[in-house]
């Protein structure tokens, strides 16, 4: 699946997207964030406050317990500041 990073997360990770192939036990958005954090130090720091991570699956906003099994694109971003 593809992961998109926005705003501060994009800056801290120094990339706006990447292809990943998480193991089967990574079932939810929250699991995915934990798995990304375990892979590299930049991600560990970028996502150190899980309560400040928002997510969308295939361009629909989801909660942290959403399942990623059928996701093509998972977006991770900080709280939105539109308007």
């Amino acid at each position: 699946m593809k992961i998109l990073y926005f705003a501060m997360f994009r800056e801290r990770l120094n990339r706006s997207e990447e292809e990943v192939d998480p193991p089967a036990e990574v079932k939810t958005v929250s699991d995915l964030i934990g798995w990304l954090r375990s892979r590299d130090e930049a991600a560990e720091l970028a996502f150190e406050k899980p309560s400040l991570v928002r997510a969308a699956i295939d361009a629909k906003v989801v909660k942290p317990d959403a399942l990623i099994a059928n996701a093509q694109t998972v977006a991770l971003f900080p709280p939105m500041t539109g308007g």
Partner: protein
Amino acid sequence: MTVRIQTSAFDPGAETNAFLAESAGAGAAVTFTGLVRSRPDDPVETLTLESYPELAVNQIEAMIAEATARFGLLRATVIHRYGALPAGDPIVQVMTLAPHRQAAFEAAEFLMDYLKTDAPFWKKEATPEGERWVEAKHEDDAAKDRWRNND
């Protein structure tokens, strides 16, 4: 409904006139324009908005659908820019059309409150002291939540 997510500038007056030209006898239209703020004691040279346009369209269409059902709107348009904007530039325009003024005013405010917290844009200010991300504000969450308290 019309949703436009764009980097190019827009002319708020021309957009308003185009919206009013199709008012079809409705009694009330409200237009709101949000601008890049810069104050003498807190100058901002450039506001750069990052966006996820595909998600923005989905989120804003859902907001307009809810506002339309709730306030009985006849029509609504939201234009939202992203990219690097100089101080004073229009960022966002919300236009609502309804039979009476209260619905048009309330729906415009409802849409702006939701855009603040639920539209995928992230703002970074360039100031004489450097760059900083604009943090989400509790007041904006509270402003959105008050529409829920009445349910």
